[in-house]
């Protein structure tokens, strides 16, 4: 085989060319994300933490660490993940159980405190674990996936305990994200179209029912109502959405300029977190926020291209999963902020505050880059 000519990798390391386009997009997005995080967070940081650099300084530290990790991981052969898949999944389940015994924050149990680093969200790990599980499975059973037994049941079996535990926290947005990742990986992996049509039909009926009578869903009822009319409850459920729309609308075509947001002055809750994109839209306007969405589109496209070029089905599916995860998260987040879908707390990759999440994300990007090196390797 051609590989004999020049040894470019081993079981542990890879030396091929990585996809610089993907790396560039990641670095650009992360840099813009950090600038915007600083702008969006400093009022809250000053007011609530007494230090305008409170959020950004932590985030920058994690970003620097994350970039080092990303570059390091890109050199590591992703294939070592395959044998680690089951242990990782096992640990994830354990963490998801463990988190249920943590003291609740704002009424939910999503975080495990870790000395020095801060907190760990097991759901962040769970996303990656699911991607690995599905990738491993698909790499073996790809050919049989058109059947119900191989194309549907195993995915359900892998997903079910995770969803069950997430709903115990509860963490609806993570659940939606997991289902999304699962759907994309099943689709790419080869599950029959029919099931997607069935799922789409079921989802359509469900959405219709919820819109017609939101009270059916106990937990999400208020969210649906305020989605349809944020001013139905302007001081309660609708508050965040209204403040977000104020911010986005104030941006106009060209925006208030970086640092020019007024809505971030304690009006917009979570300005540094789930609703950071509203500040971005206010400061950078329609033009700036559209460009950022285009960068995300490029990232998604490039991630899937890396997957497509991968000669190894496991690597391909890992890249698909990670890219799908970033893509779905981005789309959901912006959809929530623009009140396109009901409000679920979901963060924006590379932008939202959250050290461990950013670290985790960059590590995943490292894995995608590792896959891209292999692709380059295989192509030769």
């Amino acid at each position: 085989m051609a590989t004999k000519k020049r040894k470019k990798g081993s079981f542990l390391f890879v030396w091929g060319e990585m996809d610089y386009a993907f790396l560039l997009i990641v670095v650009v997005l992360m840099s813009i994300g950090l600038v915007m995080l600083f702008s969006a967070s400093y009022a809250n940081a000053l007011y609530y933490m007494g230090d305008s650099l409170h959020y950004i300084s932590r985030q920058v530290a994690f970003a620097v660490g994350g970039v080092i990790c990303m570059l390091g991981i890109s050199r590591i052969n992703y294939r070592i993940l395959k044998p680690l898949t089951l242990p990782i999944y096992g640990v994830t389940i354990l963490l998801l159980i463990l988190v249920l015994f943590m003291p609740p924050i704002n009424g939910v149990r999503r975080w495990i405190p870790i000395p020095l680093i801060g907190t760990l969200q097991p759901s962040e790990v769970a996303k990656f674990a699911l991607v690995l599980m599905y990738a491993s499975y698909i790499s073996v059973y790809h050919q049989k996936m058109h059947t119900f037994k191989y194309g549907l049941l195993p995915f359900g079996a892998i997903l079910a305990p995770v969803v069950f535990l997430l709903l115990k926290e509860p963490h609806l947005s993570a659940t939606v994200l997991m289902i999304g990742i699962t759907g994309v990986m099943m689709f790419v992996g080869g599950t029959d179209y029919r099931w997607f049509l069935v799922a789409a039909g079921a989802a359509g009926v469900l959405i219709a029912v919820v819109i017609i009578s939101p009270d059916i869903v106990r937990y999400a009822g208020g969210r649906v109502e305020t989605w349809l009319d944020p001013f139905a409850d302007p001081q309660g459920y609708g508050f965040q959405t209204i403040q977000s729309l104020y911010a986005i609308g104030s941006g106009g075509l060209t925006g208030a300029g970086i640092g020019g947001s007024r809505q971030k002055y304690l009006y917009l809750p979570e300005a540094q977190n789930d609703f950071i994109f509203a500040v971005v839209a206010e400061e950078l306007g329609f033009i700036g926020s559209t460009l950022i969405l285009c960068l995300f589109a490029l990232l998604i496209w490039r991630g899937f291209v890396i997957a497509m070029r991968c000669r190894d089905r496991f690597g391909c599916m890992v890249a698909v999963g990670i890219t799908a995860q970033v893509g779905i998260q981005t789309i959901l987040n912006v959809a929530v902020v623009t009140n396109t879908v009901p409000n679920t707390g979901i963060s924006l990759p590379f932008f939202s505050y959250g050290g461990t999440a950013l670290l985790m994300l960059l590590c995943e990007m490292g894995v995608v880059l590792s896959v891209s090196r292999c692709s380059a390797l295989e192509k030769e």
Partner: protein
Amino acid sequence: MVRGTSNKMRLRLNIVIFLMAVAAMAVLIGRLFYIQIYEGEKWQGRAISQQMRAMQISAERGVIYDTNMKTLAASATVWDVIVSPAQLKGPEELELIADYLSELLEVDREKIIERGQRTYSYYEVIKSKVEKDIADEINAFILKHRLNSVNLVENTRRYYPYGSLASTVLGFTGSDNNGAYGLEAYYNKTLSGLPGVRTSAKNAKGADMDFLYEQRFEPQPGNSIVLTIDEAVQHIVEKHLEAAVVEHNVEARACAIVMDVNTGAILAMATKPDFDPNEPRVIADPHVAEQLAQLKLEVDENEYLKALGEAQFAQWRNKAISDPYEPGSVFKILTSAMALDLEVTKPTGNYFYCPGFHVVAGRRKACWKAAGHGSIDFTQAVKFSCNPAFMMLGERIGAENFYTYFDRFGLLSTTGIELPGEADSIFYSMDLLGKKSGEELASSAFGQTFKVTPIQLITAVSAAVNGGNLMEPYIVKQVIDANGNVVETTQPSVRRQVISAESSKTLAEILHKVVSDPDGSGRYAYVPGYRVGGKTGTSEKIDQSVDGVVKERISSFLGIAPSDDPQYAVLVMLDEPHLQNIYGSIIAAPVVGNIFKEILPYLGVEPHYTEKELQNLDVSTPQVTGGLVSDAQRQATAKGLKIRVVGEGDTVVRQVPASGQPIPRGSTIILYTQETEQSTTVTVPNVVGMSGAAANAAIVNAGLNIKVGGIDIDSVGSVAYSQTPYAGTVVEAGTVVTVLFTSTTPEAD
């Protein structure tokens, strides 16, 4: 190697790329376009309205001037002391500030600390409205310690340079600088101007983000008002009214109005006791204050506060416009006006017989003089204030005419004076007045059983004597802007002609006789050199009678001068005087006389003395201070005065009375010849009730000078009925004591 992507996977991946990177993104960009471009203005507008704080910049409040542009009320800049805890550098700074401010401003230190710990706040008012000297000190403190956390914000405060002068007319402003009472309230809009606006961005907690955005719209200063009130006249009126309140122990306050009868302009309007508008909430009447202090010890907080509030409202109340009362015999002026205008009587040759009563509806209604006045003509009926004669006049006038004139004199509606809280009269309906029994008409004809306000009464009487024109009374003659340009001028306005000019002239002459004739009931308002006319009134407060016995009375007098060409009217009303001497029923008349005596020369009305008056005319004390005692002796003798020298020196270093004082011939000037000489003080003796000789002796023996007044000084058997300074006052030796005499026992009317 496991095989890479199959064609099927590639196809599906392309579908996923399309759905996520193209379709979903297109939807989101479309959403952004819709919110930011299509709906942008709507959201932006709403966002701005929640982000912007409009802070009022108060406009400078206009000045209230008297008719001669003396300042009666003005605003000055003061400062609010603000601490912004968000800008504190640390707890030490707060300690420093709390120590300093609590000491300087007399504010509780703990309070400053507590508010200073609200670290989210930028605006904690520690004390509002501090004066310039305090503000300067704080500024120095701020500079010394380079503080960002302490600020001074401009505010304004209202000052009333003349203290309580005209306080019930001027009113006062509240802590928000808005008029709360009186002219300040009535003209609040005019005086306030238009506040400016400072718009700044704020955060969701309300604190300023002024580094982001600020815009100012400058305030428009308020207009000033120029009153018809003359500070000098007002001062004279208040001086005499206050003295009367003290002398006669007036229980339910007293009021006075001076009106220009030809224009309706108010030259003075006073209620006593009143208050100091600089401290409107402080109870000015020492007796009331004392009662309240006592009450505070006895009852619980709420009851005390209720009593305090009532006392405050009571002292703010402008009695001259807000309290209708039974005018009593003063109203006979208007009944006379009606009778003359209807020609149902004439000044002389038309006789009334008064047996001491008049029978109305089968019952005797008594005259104040039980023995009766006998056969008197109309002029005498007015002079003696004979009730039966006026009941007869009422019958001649008839209910319908009486009601019509009452209405046409403006007594059935408020006068429209530019003051808040004007009350209306309480009078019979036409039907009630016209009842067959005639009781209502009979009592109305001599001024009882109905109520009018002092301002209504003086306005009506002015019409009766000024040629018959009912004027619209006014108190603001001009509105001027901040640059002194006249914005508005009040033109005297005639509401209607009520009686003929001829009737009016006749009435004024009769009123003159009431005062000038030795047997006139109004003779205690006599002023040498001036033709004063007027009418006394003592009304029983029937609505406050206990078991049919009237306990309280109102003593009033309405004077006009000069009666041959009426220019000014003065009404003095003493509510519930507690009489200390037998002349109590006419106590309001000398107050009016004293007021006329001082204001007529001031207002430029020339005196015309009779021969007899000229004899009694005062001489002006010579200027002898600084000269030799011998020179002083010569000058004094030339003027018919005596001297008394105190001390061993040859040169006069001081004289009492001072030069230029009018004193009677034969008075003694005290000359001090040594700087070190202590001035001799004496206590004024009580001479009320004494004969002329006795009073003279008492006063001269006390080392004082006497000046006699009244109309019957020379008559045998005349007695003193009033004196100033009052008995018991400690004055310098040589001071002139004015004593008023009367020949006969005054009548109650």
